[in-house]
């Protein structure tokens, strides 16, 4: 816990990362955003390289035991962001609460695909949700972020942070143009728990339907806030159990045997 070398390294990385600040790269079709947290992550892994050897075995161990707790601080902040907006959200539309169930679509498509292309337990972390901060915290608490599940959720989290805005901006225009979905529904659905992704999607929709811009922004923002609360409970009670189940099924289909994690659990029960 009190590994001062580790904390000193982190302190230096944090200061460097925040000093560099945000970078936005405009690609024409959308923006790629680089944030200090990503530099901190990359620099952190680099300190572990055998040729650099700043962070050793001990530091890595302490860092991973600290992670679960550190995420709680972020979640506390998350809660205080949602709280003040709750009355407005609840008044907006009951559809906001239920559309969170759509996140299960992630599991139904994501898990089979992840297993098919060869991911093991990473699949659970990567495809049980859209992998925003609360999901990362949840997986971190349940499995540890240095586990296979943790690698999965961190990977998708990082992808989302880097290309999420472009992706959601593009999807919103494509869906609005080619699918028979109402812009309100598309605005609500964009609130997956990331302000930047939601803003990008609502931005595209507002460009297509300028006279609805205010309502679209309101639905998007409300749904985005709510995702952090009811989306989290949905991950805990529905999405993760469903992911586990689907993982076992698809694993058996692909490899012709039960996943090692399930076999181990069954053995434990027998003993």
């Amino acid at each position: 816990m009190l590994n001062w070398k580790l904390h000193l390294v982190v302190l230096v990385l944090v200061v460097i990362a925040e000093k560099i600040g945000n970078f936005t790269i405009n690609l024409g079709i959308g923006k790629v955003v680089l944030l200090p947290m990503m530099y901190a992550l990359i620099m952190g892994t680099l300190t572990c390289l055998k040729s650099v050897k700043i962070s050793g075995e001990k530091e890595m161990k302490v860092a991973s035991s600290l992670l679960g707790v550190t995420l709680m601080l972020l979640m506390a902040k998350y809660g205080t962001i949602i709280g003040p907006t709750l009355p407005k959200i609840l008044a907006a539309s009951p559809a906001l609460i239920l559309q969170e169930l759509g996140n299960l679509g992630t599991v139904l498509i994501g898990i089979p695909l992840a297993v098919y292309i060869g991911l093991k337990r990473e699949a659970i972390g990567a495809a049980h949700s859209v992998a925003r901060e609360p999901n990362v915290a949840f997986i971190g608490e349940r499995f540890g972020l240095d586990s296979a599940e943790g690698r999965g959720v961190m990977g998708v989290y990082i992808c989302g942070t880097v290309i999420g805005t472009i992706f959601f901006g593009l999807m919103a225009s494509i869906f609005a143009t080619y699918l028979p979905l109402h812009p309100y529904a598309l605005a609500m659905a964009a609130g997956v728990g990331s302000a930047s992704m939601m803003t990008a999607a609502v931005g595209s929709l507002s460009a297509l339907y300028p006279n609805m811009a205010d309502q679209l922004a309101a639905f998007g923002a409300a749904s985005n806030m709510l995702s952090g609360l009811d989306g989290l409970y949905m991950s805990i009670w529905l999405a993760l159990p469903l992911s586990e189940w689907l993982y076992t099924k698809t694993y058996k289909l692909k490899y012709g045997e039960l996943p090692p994690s399930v076999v181990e659990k069954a053995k434990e029960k027998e003993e």
Partner: protein
Amino acid sequence: MNMKDTIIALSIVGFMSLISNVVGTKHAFVDAIPGMIVLVAIAIAGIGLGKVLPGKIPAVAYVVTLGCILTFPGVPTAEFINEAVKKVGFLQLCTPILAYAGIAIGKDLDIFVTEGWRIVVVACVVFAGTYLGSAVIAQAILKAIGQI
């Protein structure tokens, strides 16, 4: 991790976040301290509840829910907490966490490199699946209640 270690860990990370906050935002170090103390307290309370209460609900749910309740408009603590935590940036809180995460996953760097492309593919499908799934349900409900 026991409660004492949890509190020590939160205090250390809280301090790191204050540094991150002072470098990354326009808020002064001292101004952000009350907000940080509130956040640490909410986190400790949430983790404590997760340990004490039955039902195997993870602490993260208690922490988020507690944060919501304490800032819900009209609750006596809401105004003070809102003002205090406003001075602690969300993105600045992420920076130290991901620095620790980077060091923690350092030992698996080679796995990350070899599996990276698979995760990126899954990520794209996950985003599309979530968005489409939610949009279809939202469409159905909005129609059912006559909002569209």
